Every structure is written in structure tokens, then in C-alpha cells.
């Protein structure tokens, strides 16, 4: 996972053709192959390579959590000892109610937190219990934490590959 691989022209065209979703037809890869003038086998092989190298994280149904009733979402930020940030990041990232966990630098004196985790629940009470569970897991190493609720999404656009643009995707 995470090896640098270079995408060639056909790989990039496959990314562009599939990033908004596969067609919901019996043979979706054949459908993509027809659009790109190649074979379904070629499309599947290249997608498998991108999956194995981590460029594709997963292939499946992409749920809309908000529509499905997940209203209690919060960005939690934690101040943990720097030498333990990787250990705790991995533990928190493995929790099934955490969708993303990141190590980011502190920005002192305004910002003391070095670990970020997006926590999800159906409501704020449930969210609070989950955050308490993280705090308990960290014990004394939880020197401080906060929850930042989003009140408005002002802009959210996916990063899109543009056809013909040279791109190297790496860790």
C-alpha cells in the first residue's frame, strides 16, 4: 500500500470516467471500456492495480451519512505528547465511529492540538459518549481536547482529475 505508481494516460481516463460513479448496469466495466475504446479486462486490471497500490481506497456504495441520519458529527482535536501521537493516531483511527484521524502540527500559542479525529454519531449525546471513550483511552495523555461542531458547509467540492493533466499520486 502507498507505493508511488505513475498513472498513464489510460489510467487517468479510467479515473475520470469512474470518479462520479460506475453506471448501474449489468456490466459496468464493459460500459466504461466501450467509452474509452478498450476492453473490460484492461479496465478491471488497471483498477485492481490502483486498488492494490492504494490510489483507489475502496470500490463500493458511497453513503451519504447526513441523509442516513448521522447528525452528530464533530471534529475533535486532542493535545497528546508528540512522542505518542502516532501510537494514539493509529488507535483512534481504528475506531469504527472515526472516519478520519490526522496528525497536524501545533500552532503555538493559539493552537495546542496535534491530533485530529472526525467522530460520527446519530446525535450529539451519542457523539459525547464516543468522545468520552476516546478520552478514557488516552487517560493522562489527554492533556486537553475540544469538539468543533460545523454549523455550515460553505463550500465542498471533490478534488477532480482533469483529463489530460499529468498527475502523480503518492503518499
Amino acid at each position, binding site marked *: 500500500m502507498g507505493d508511488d505508481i505513475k498513472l498513464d494516460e489510460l489510467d487517468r481516463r479510467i*479515473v475520470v470516467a*469512474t*470518479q*462520479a*460513479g*460506475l453506471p*448501474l*448496469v*449489468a456490466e459496468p*466495466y464493459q460500459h466504461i471500456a466501450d467509452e474509452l475504446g478498450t476492453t473490460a479486462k484492461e479496465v*478491471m486490471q488497471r*483498477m485492481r492495480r*490502483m*486498488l492494490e497500490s*492504494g490510489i*483507489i*481506497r*475502496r*470500490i*463500493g*456504495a*458511497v*453513503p*451519504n*451519512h447526513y*441523509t*442516513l*441520519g448521522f447528525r452528530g458529527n464533530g471534529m475533535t482535536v486532542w493535545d497528546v505528547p508528540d512522542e505518542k*501521537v*502516532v501510537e494514539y*493516531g493509529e488507535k483512534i*483511527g*481504528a475506531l*469504527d465511529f472515526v*472516519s478520519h*484521524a*490526522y*496528525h*497536524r*502540527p501545533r*500552532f503555538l500559542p*493559539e*493552537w495546542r492540538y496535534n491530533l485530529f479525529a472526525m467522530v*460520527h454519531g446519530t446525535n450529539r449525546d451519542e457523539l459525547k459518549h464516543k468522545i468520552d471513550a476516546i478520552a478514557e483511552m488516552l487517560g493522562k495523555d489527554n492533556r486537553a481536547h475540544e469538539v*468543533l*461542531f*460545523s*454549523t*455550515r458547509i*460553505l*463550500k*465542498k*467540492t471533490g*478534488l477532480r*482529475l482533469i483529463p489530460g493533466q499529468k*498527475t*502523480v*499520486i*503518492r*503518499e
Partner: protein
Amino acid sequence: MLAKVVNPEQLTELEKRLLNEYQHGLPLSATPFADMAQHLDTTEDVVLRALKEMQEQGMISRVGPVFKPKRAGASTLAALAVSPEKLASVAAYVSAFDEVNHNYERLHRLNLWFVVTAPNQQRVDEVLVEIEVYSGQPVLYLPLMKHFHIDLGFPLWC
């Protein structure tokens, strides 16, 4: 565009299984939906109709590959403390940059959180400086140092 909320109790067993079991692992085979149908003990047609219906209702945004965010170039998370009277104007200014792909208002002294992505660090810095000049506030920049989560999707009712 706000989708209406679906009550999880109203989902069919098939919809729940599709959501819980197929956020990853959609077969890379000639007929993936027929293969899924076999596993789910139903027919290809039923699986395809269920997925189309879920997509139309906004329960799923799509069925397909989820790509790792592009790491080429430079990017950073950034935050700004904006006074309530200036928030609308600063938020609009920030969102207007092509380099800004996420912009959230959050309940905190630092109330505007956004991500700046550009082909190189110099352009990221330029955007941050322009935002500092416009808002009159220092921007906190918090670039990613390490990403921990292995993204296999999200358990919904397991």
C-alpha cells in the same frame, strides 16, 4: 441542495446489507452486481434496482471507486477567527478561491476552517497571505503530517 433524511428503520433488509457490506469490496468482475446478488441471495435486477433507488433518494451518492485524495502539489488545513459581522464577507472571499475546496463554519473562536490545495507551496502561501490581508486576521495553517485511518467505509448498523 439538502437531501431529506431517511429513517434507518424504514430501510429494507437489502438496503441495510448493501450499505453495510458493500461500502468496499464491490467485485472487479464482468458482472459485479450479479455476483453481489448471489451473495445476497437475490437477483441482479433486484440489486441494480435497489442501488438506483438509493442513489435517487440520496442515501448513497454513487457506487464506484473512492480515490485517495491527490497528494501531488501542496495543501493545508487552515483556520481563521472572524468577527460575526465580518464572517459572511470573509467566508465568501475564502470560498471564491479555486484553491479552496472545503470551507466550514465551526462553533469555536476559530470559526472558519478551510482547505487550500495548489500545485505548489508558493501558491498555497500566496492564497493564505491574500486571506490574511482581506480578513485582517492571522491564518493558522495546519498541514497534514500523517493520516492514520485505513478507509474501509463506515459501519452504519453493525
